[in-house]
């Protein structure tokens, strides 16, 4: 005797959050049943494996039917097929769009193209996230990217409204979209120690300070691209390293401020010129798309690594960057204070976020 058909439909759609997670994680029905059995639901309810299996199948079917709606979450609220209480809808959407940190780290900054999608099996093998789940997450990124690409206005707000996501998740997606759009390099070995949250923070900084939408003209364009004019202006900062007087003056101002406040003072003094050249060169090169892509790798190579080998503490770093930024204001011949602040504000917070093991 075999079960030919087994269906359970509620007027209010019944869903088990635990099973939903299994489904999202790409478990097969058999695997999900196994994990559930180990989890001890059976003893709790005196159910048999058969019952558990039937329940799991039902839930999987429901989720599959809902999946179409989850692709455009706004539809979920006014579709008629499933009667789902609003708090449930929110849960379904939020979980569907939640992604794995390990997975996103692999595709961050890559082009969201078919080619990348083909390589997902490698990613799956590497991260231990099931291929099914990888595909879902990748498709989510792509879907959000496509929708937002054509919209005007603030990025985070657009994502939140179109996909009904929480603020936190919308910000994460904004970072993913921003990275994918600018194709920032994140896969190099030197960058492996950075987590997605580090990058997401940096992306947030860049979006809110360096893009077109960052300034007053909020409605003009969306903030996926860095502002061209600003990047041009950054070239002017070169004077800080090309003008010898200015460089020396800057150095002495910073050293005076730092003396006696840190153990790493000697290293700072010795390395000042190198470090300053590093930061200013990064700024000057950002007009090239290629160099924009290498922004994070440059930050690590030119600045973070030398400091780390000199064993600066996080406190040292903060102190140094604060004085380095502020001292430039006292330089008489340096006229680009506004651009400098806009540049260093972001650089400082990014470096502070990225300066860890």
């Amino acid at each position, binding site marked *: *005797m*075999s*079960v*030919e*058909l*087994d*269906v*359970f*439909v*509620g*007027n*209010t*759609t*019944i869903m*088990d959050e635990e099973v939903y997670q299994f489904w999202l994680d790409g478990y097969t029905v058999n695997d999900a049943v196994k994990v559930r059995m180990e989890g001890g*639901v059976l003893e*709790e*309810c*005196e*159910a*048999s494996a*058969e*019952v*558990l299996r*039937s*329940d799991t*199948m*039902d839930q999987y*079917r*429901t989720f*599959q*039917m809902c999946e179409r709606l989850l692709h455009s*979450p*706004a*539809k979920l*609220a*006014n*579709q*008629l*097929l*499933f*009667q789902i*209480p*609003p*708090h449930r*809808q*929110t849960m379904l959407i939020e979980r569907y769009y939640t992604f794995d940190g390990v997975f996103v780290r692999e595709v961050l900054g890559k082009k969201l193209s078919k080619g990348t999608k083909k390589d997902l099996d490698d990613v799956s093998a590497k991260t231990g996230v099931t291929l099914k789940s990888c595909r879902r997450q990748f498709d989510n990124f792509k879907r959000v990217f496509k929708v937002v690409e054509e919209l005007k206005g603030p990025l985070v707000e657009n994502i939140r*409204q*179109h996909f*009904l996501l929480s603020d936190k998740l919308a910000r994460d997606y904004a970072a993913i979209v921003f990275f994918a759009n600018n194709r920032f390099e994140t896969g190099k070995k030197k960058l492996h120690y950075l987590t997605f949250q580090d990058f997401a923070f940096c992306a947030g900084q860049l979006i809110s300070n360096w893009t077109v939408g960052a300034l007053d003209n909020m409605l003009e364009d969306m903030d996926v691209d860095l502002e061209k004019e600003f990047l041009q202006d950054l070239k002017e900062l070169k004077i800080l390293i090309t003008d010898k007087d200015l460089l020396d003056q800057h150095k002495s101002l910073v050293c005076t401020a730092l003396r006696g406040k840190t153990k790493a003072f000697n290293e700072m003094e010795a390395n000042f010129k190198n470090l300053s050249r590093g930061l200013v060169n990064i700024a000057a090169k950002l007009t090239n798309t290629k160099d924009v892509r290498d922004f994070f790798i440059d930050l690590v190579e030119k600045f973070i690594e030398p400091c780390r080998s000199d064993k600066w503490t996080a406190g040292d770093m903060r102190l140094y960057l604060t004085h380095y930024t502020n001292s430039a204001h006292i330089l008489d011949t340096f006229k680009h204070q506004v651009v400098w602040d806009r540049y260093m504000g972001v650089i400082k917070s990014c470096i502070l976020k990225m300066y860890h093991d």
Partner: protein
Amino acid sequence: MPGKLKAKIVAGRHLPVMDRASDLTDAFVEVKFGNTTFKTDVYPKSLNPQWNSEWFKFEVDDEDLQDEPLQITVLDHDTYSANDAIGKVYIDIDPLLSSEAATVISGWFPIYDTIHGIRGEINVLVKVDLFNDLNRFRQSSCGVKFFCTTSIPRCYRAALVHGFVEELVVNEDPEYQWIDRIRTPRASNEARQRLISLMSGELQRKIGLKVLEMGGNAVVGYLQCFDLEGESGLVVRAIGTACTLDKLIPGTVLNECMCVCVCVCCCSLILSGMGSGISVGKEAGPLKTLLRQQAQSALEQREFPFFTLTCFPPGFLVHIGGVVSARSVKLLDRIHNPDEPETRDAWWEEIRQEIKSHAKALGCHAVVGYSESTTICEEVCILSASGTAAMLNPRFMREGCLDAGGSDQRLSRCGFCHIPYDEFNMPFPAQLTYCYHCRRQKVPDVLFTTIDLPAEAAVTGKGCLIQARLCRTKKKAQGEVNATAISNLLPFMEYELHTQLMNKLKLRCMNALFGLRIQISVGENMLLGLASATGVYLSALPAPGGIQIAGKTPSDLSYDQHISTMQKRINDTIVMNKELYNIHPPECIEEVVGSPIPDRQRSRLFRSTSESSDELSELDLSHGKKDAFVLEIDDTDAVEDIQSLLTDAPMPAGFYSCNTEVMPGIYNWTSGLQMFTSVRVYRLNNANLTNQGLNKIFTDLCENLLKSLYFKLRSMIPCCLCHLNFTVAVPEEELIQVRRHTPKNTSPILSIFPRNILNEEQLQFSMELCGESTSSNNQPTAKASERCSPLPEVRSRSLRSTRSLPCGAPVTVVKMTPLSFLPMTRIVKYLGIINMFFIRETTSLREEGGVSGFLHSFIAEVFAMVRAHVAALGGNAVVSYSMKECVFMENPNKNQAQCLINVSGDAVIFVRESDQEAIPPLITSGQTSTTGADGTT
């Protein structure tokens, strides 16, 4: 002539992409009523068209208004080829014809296609202007209200109960017409849907006419069924109870407790013959008729004093005489003339006569809780009717004598238990005692009924669902031979089902069954019987004796040992069940009086068969021991019985189940409610199974189904599955189908209709969950209500809608329940009957997720369409919902499947009672009755 129907097509949304090139659709709409068709303009290149059409006006007879549905077809315009249909919406405009019901139908309807399912939604406005018709010979019956509810609807008062109305119409099934060979499956499905819609409209109109003739204004307990007889045609039939209802002025809460009398359990079954429509058998045994001379003229003048109601106004019922049922096996032949459905009429007439005479034999002049059903396999059809024989208060039948019930006579809580017949002249042997409640009248030892537990009944402990399940093999045969074989098997099946029920009842230490429903379905090589009822301990009846096991042939020691272990297990189970159901009857002095059969608890089954109409076979199940129900283990049947007794798994803690509207012994309902449907189909691999093997499989299937439900609903504990309705079918060889529906409350109440499928059988039940916050101490009540009560939902919805900008107004939440009420709420308006029929077919079964995926989405779609229609009428719930029919056919080799579903219910508007102090009347009365029972017993 006297009606103007107006329809306006506003907009569409979420339409499917019909033009692959542009990924868009050029949609327009055809609106059709009768033979008139209107079209909207084409709204080019949009998936969310805004037609905003003019008002399309149809001037039609009210006869047509009742029969015809408004048909809306959405199409994709194609310049070069034929326009592609996207889907259709059928709108039944009947609710607009009654002045008290809905005035406008307005809302989003799912656009339905029989091949693709729901494809987007359409916003429609419909209105009707009716002119007064003074024609005395009119054929329409506008204004007669229909209710599926089997009690007097909550916001009405019964001024007069007129009685039984029935009608049937027959037609050829379009699926079997010659034209079906050349038309597309879609066209054929649509022809069928439309025909059935027309037929049910016509049926309703005809019944309405009968009601008007009787002087009534409403039909309560309206039960409509389809018989898909295949080659021989399509029968739509309906029964109901004609009433004159007065609308209650809101605020005046009528004392709604009901006085029902239930008496002796007598299961008499009658088979009338086989052969094409020729009844061989006549009425059964020469029962000593003992009509008590009473003023019953009002009832006796009626042809059939039947009532489809299961709950009654106070004082309506006086005594009850037990279950009466009749079955008849018929051979189907082609319906030659659709306009003269006489053969079918005659069949039913016969059965009703039998029921009537059974009731007479029990000393009763009426039958309540009456229902009819059929099961068809190839050309054999079993017609069944069952009900509860009762004595009614004639006051309700006469004009102008009805005032607020219960004032003139104190409602007694045990009156319904008292026997209606003469104790010295009993129609069957039973043991009588003085009523344990009033000590004045005689009561039987056990009661079986098909009605709901009367609200005022004194109950000890809680109730529970009791099921008897049975499988019998039969040889494959054709025509008359087959019919004879079936008729020969039927009496044995009924007998065994009855024995099982009785054993299980005793095992649970209960003494009465309510809501008894016995379904027998035929397959090619087996018969399936499924009896479901709710067992209770009525305080007025004597305590049931235990069960004794006796070996007839005392042989070796191990055998005795085996018996004693069995006995011990049974005794332990009884003790455990007493604890579980909280049954602690006060120890009573044994005072058996005046009974012809002294000193024994007996259960006798009285039956008669048509073949042997003069001989009366009585089976005495009792053995010589005092106060015990004895099972003889030598008998293989008994071994089976015992096995099945003990294999019934106990319900997990926190769950209760019953198949009646309210769970006896539980009164703290919450408003959380969840309804669900479950369908299962099993394939039997081993063709050569014995009866016992089949029984075991069948029992396991039912048990598994229940277990599955308990597991699914575990998050809702404490919960009660109410109105659990099982349907079993044997759709094709080696396939059993069981269906159940369940409505349940999101918090403590939950009703379910499950339906699962087993080897060619179908079983349907609906259940409801009820949270029991007061008695279960370890369950934090606050948490439960917080989780489930709809209030937090509403709040979060409003929050949400402010956030989700693009998605317009939120969808109205529509509750569905098979109950006639929603706990903790008050129904303020009945908007009309919902009666819908859908067909869904697929030619890409695998792609749609196999049979389960296909049916899952179809049921979800049906729910969605019912909700949409209710919402469009302005309602927020469907009560008395039931899935009458769910026929599923598949052909996996061709990758095809087809499914037919018929659902019905009453659309209502309810308001929450949370802000009022009043507890629903029914609950109040229930509570008083328990406390009363505790005090008196």
